[in-house]
């Protein structure tokens, strides 16, 4: 096994058992190597979120394997909590804990899950809040922050667990336009520091500049998996051409 393969998605099929029996992922395979920034784009409903959420088992695939650090985490006998600690996730709607201060949002999981020492975690949390520019808001509550600030806290919260990979599900889609930049800036910085990232987004500028690979999904299938230059400048797939014509 090559060690630089952090995540391997092998023939993953996902059907929601909800009356519609929607097939959200139709036999998808994918590899994510250390240090890559993989951007996933595609029309709404194409299965991007489901793809991302199966990576940390928030959605359990109907069949197929997710190999993370050599372990098939789709296997039911695996203790998923151990592996989730190493996969940070950032959501469209932030999902900060409203009853906790900003600092507590960051320190809760390292203390409760990893059993780390309070002081160590708080120091790290304050450093991370400094990096996302919100050290002075440590003792405020999430409701006192703007959308952009909330999302920066959410990123810092995920980073505080010191993950191997960060998963982003449309992190800027719920933001007012003037706040999109500050969040993308933090993500760009993270990529520059070598963090492995999987990003679902509609920000084509970000995909092109920061992505090391861009994936196009449509109707539950991965149709294109290319470097950004080829993806945006010489798209061959007709569905991708259609999509790019609409969004660019």
């Amino acid at each position, binding site marked *: 096994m090559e060690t630089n393969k952090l995540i391997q998605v092998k023939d993953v099929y996902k059907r929601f058992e909800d009356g519609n029996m929607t097939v959200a992922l139709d036999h998808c395979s994918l590899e994510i190597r250390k240090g890559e920034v993989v951007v996933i784009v595609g029309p709404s409903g194409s299965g991007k979120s489901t793809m991302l959420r199966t990576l*940390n088992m*928030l959605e359990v695939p109907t069949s197929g394997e997710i190999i993370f650090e050599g372990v098939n985490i789709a296997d039911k006998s695996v203790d998923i*909590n*151990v592996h*989730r*600690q190493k*996969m*940070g*996730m950032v*959501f469209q*709607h932030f*999902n*900060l*804990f*409203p*009853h906790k201060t900003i600092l507590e949002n960051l320190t*809760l*999981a390292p203390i*409760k*899950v*990893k059993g780390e020492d309070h002081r160590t975690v708080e120091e790290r949390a304050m450093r991370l809040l400094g990096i996302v520019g919100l050290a002075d808001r440590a003792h405020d509550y*999430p*409701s006192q922050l703007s959308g952009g600030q909330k999302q920066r806290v*959410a990123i810092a*919260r*995920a980073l505080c*667990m010191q993950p191997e990979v960060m998963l982003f599900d449309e992190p800027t889609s719920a933001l007012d336009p003037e706040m999109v930049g500050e969040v993308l800036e933090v993500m760009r910085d993270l990529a520059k520091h070598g963090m492995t990232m999987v990003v679902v987004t509609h920000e084509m500028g970000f995909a092109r500049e920061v992505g090391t690979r861009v994936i196009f999904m449509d109707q539950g299938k991965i149709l294109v998996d290319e470097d950004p230059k080829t993806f945006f400048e010489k798209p061959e797939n007709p569905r991708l051409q259609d999509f790019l014509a609409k969004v660019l």
Partner: protein
Amino acid sequence: MTLWQRMTNFSFLPDYAPYFINGIICTLLLSVVSVFVAIIPALCLALMRLSKSKILRGISGAYIQVFRSTPLLVQLFIVYFGPFTAITLPSYKMFGFIDTAIFIPGVVALALNSSAYVAESIRAGILAVDKGQTEAARSLGLTQAQTMRYIVLPQAIKNIIPTLANELVTMIKETSVIGYLGVQDLMWGTKTTAGATFLPLSPYILAAAIYFCINFPAGKAVEALERRMRRGDK
């Protein structure tokens, strides 16, 4: 006597006022203690109801249905003449008149009944917490139990507290069946007064007025509490 005279003949009051005063104390004590005692079993029932295990869900669902679909009075007698005939309870007089030997079985029966209702409101309170909260917690590696304890329950509490207060208001009325065991609650005092004075109507008018004077403001307080809790949201 005209109907109006029969309704408003409070000549019994100087002699029988203590029955009513003791009755109020007993009714309030019984209701508050019962709802309080109901909270822990109700939380267990609610968590069972939400669990992945079919068996736990089934047990909890059956319990809730049984207690909601049978009269409280029947439950009261079954508890009193069932398990409690096998146990001898110490007989101690609280406030000088409430006998623990019948008060305790009364509380147990009321709490068993109340827990079925409270369980449903706890369940609703938990379900009302945004699913994103659970997802965020689980994505950080928290177990299901840690997520419930540190993230979901603390947020569910503000949905649950108003419904608990509401349950208390309901309980104050429901406890009126407890007199059948000989617990000297407000209803028992009223009935005793009516029997002793041959005044069949006015004591009940007074009891209704007392229940109303407790529950109407309490209900309003619950509404105010609900509004405040909602305003507390983001």
